[in-house]
């Protein structure tokens, strides 16, 4: 897959995220748009995960700690063939498996998440199991910057460094906004890189909406032998839709019909502007 194709996928994923949020009349719009490039690169370039190998003990593991951005995950999993995309028409509907957070009832989902601060401890245990069994799979977990204050993250960060889990990669989707206000105003966590470093992690900072930068970072894992790696991915909440970008109301806002049409037009236009 060329870089151009990868970039096209990001735009198409964004279109589908909005489509299914619109159909469901619910969803975490801004965060799904901020993290979709990360999921795109992971599932199309990095993870050794497919519908065919999903029961293999050797597959890579992706655990989405920021579970509320499930629309991004479901759109990518559908694209990778884990389930028919039409299933997403039932998103958040009565008795649907496609609920507002990741659930293992959907093929391709590793763990049930949604409560914040849970992904990293589970990912740590999973990476530890790989080390114990001398298996070479890698474990990835996507976290939000809004969930950084959860203490369980830092308990896990300590233990992952203690056990030298260089098969573990955390990605922080640092879009700078959470439901109430900016993360800086709600609870400051900067300098985030220094905190992870102090906890024994190897850190890289990238533009998390740039697939090239993301790919380069993933390709250089582990950043340091014997240390877990964290990618602090600087992203824009609502990325790709001009009126949603950096706007708090789109944390879980659903576009009305006019807004929806405008968003799809903008994304269609951006598709034509993609270069290699």
């Amino acid at each position, binding site marked *: 897959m060329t870089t151009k194709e990868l970039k096209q996928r990001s735009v198409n994923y964004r279109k589908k995220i909005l489509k299914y949020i619109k159909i469901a009349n619910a969803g975490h719009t801004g965060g799904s748009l901020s993290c979709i490039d990360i999921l795109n690169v992971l599932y199309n370039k990095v993870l050794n995960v497919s519908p065919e190998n999903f029961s293999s003990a050797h597959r890579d593991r992706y655990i989405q700690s920021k579970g509320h951005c499930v629309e991004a995950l479901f759109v990518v999993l559908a694209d990778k063939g884990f389930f028919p995309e039409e299933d997403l028409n039932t998103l958040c509907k009565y008795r649907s498996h496609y609920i507002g957070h990741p659930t293992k009832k959907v093929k391709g989902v*590793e763990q049930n998440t949604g409560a914040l601060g849970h992904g990293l401890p589970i990912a740590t*245990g999973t990476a530890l199991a790989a080390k114990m069994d001398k298996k070479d799979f890698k474990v990835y977990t996507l976290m939000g910057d809004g969930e950084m204050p959860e203490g369980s993250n830092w*308990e896990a960060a*300590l233990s992952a460094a203690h056990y030298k889990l260089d098969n573990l990669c955390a990605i922080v989707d640092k879009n700078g906004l959470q439901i109430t206000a900016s993360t800086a105003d709600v609870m400051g966590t900067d300098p985030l890189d220094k905190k992870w470093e102090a906890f024994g992690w190897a850190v890289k900072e990238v533009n998390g909406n740039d697939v090239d930068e993301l790919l380069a970072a993933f390709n250089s894992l582990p950043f340091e032998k014997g240390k877990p790696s964290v990618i602090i991915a600087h992203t824009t909440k609502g990325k790709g839709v001009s009126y949603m970008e950096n706007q708090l109301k789109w944390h879980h806002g659903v576009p009305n019909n006019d807004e929806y049409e405008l968003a799809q037009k903008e994304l269609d236009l951006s598709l034509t502007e993609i270069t290699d």
Partner: protein
Amino acid sequence: MSKKILMAEQINTNSYKANLEIFSETLQRLAAGDKDIIAVTSDSRGSGKLVPFGQKFPEQMVEVGIAEQNLVGVAAGLASCGKKVFAVSPACFLTARALEQIKNDVAYSDNPVNVIGISAGVSYGALGSTHHSLHDYAALRAINNLMVLAPADNWETEKAIELAAASDKPVYLRFGKKPMPPLKENNDDVFAFGKGRVICEGGDVAIIATGEAVYPALEAARKLKEENINATVISMHTIKPLDTALLASIAGKCKAIVTAEEHSVYGGLGEACASYLIQNGHHNKFKIIGIPDEYTVTGSQTEIMDHYGISGTGIADTVIELLKQ
């Protein structure tokens, strides 16, 4: 009565082991033959009697430091990769601080962790309420896809650990640290999750107890016998799923039912039994013995249990009063 009840006078409790020790011994035996048996501890290997386990099987022990949330999250991750994980920490911390991890990472995500609450109930006695777990049955009963057990004696403990290691479903087990005599001299029972164990049978009253409250229930039965009151004693080691068939059976045979547990009277074994009985047309005289909703009296485990009548004398007195009503 087919089995002879062991008399308190015959027993020197110093010659018996705590269920916690049996847990450790059983886990070591299993670990020797199965490298996937893993103990995860939060600076709790000493209180969990797991120091020898750590010495014999260092590759099968994971220490996370004093961090209970991470303990359970890491255990869930290990279990998701096929490890047979025992997440071991004092019940008071494990089932309160890490309740959300038990709910989500273990039960909801269906990672078959064996959540092991050690020094449970008021085992820590005079250390006070921070160290007591009087809420764990109530909290964990309300979580779907989690079995809740409190084995009463060494035999039940060994069997429960063996079953837990082989189970592909999440289990919570709690143990105390007091030496526990066997409930039966000659024991040919079959242990199964969700199946209560009949220790002795009598038609006047059924005393249904769990964990370290079962032996006092047996002592109560002996005292009641002297008053010509015949008691059935049940070790309801599995609080969830509750053995409702056994409950229905004894409700049909016994005039009164008394429950006893080292737990709050709210939400534990007693209320679980009451809920079933009332909703299924059984209207026996009924009384729950446990720790009342108050600041727990200070003292040793035995003193606290005696204070609240979770003792041979206390349970017997409650039965006599109930039968008079």
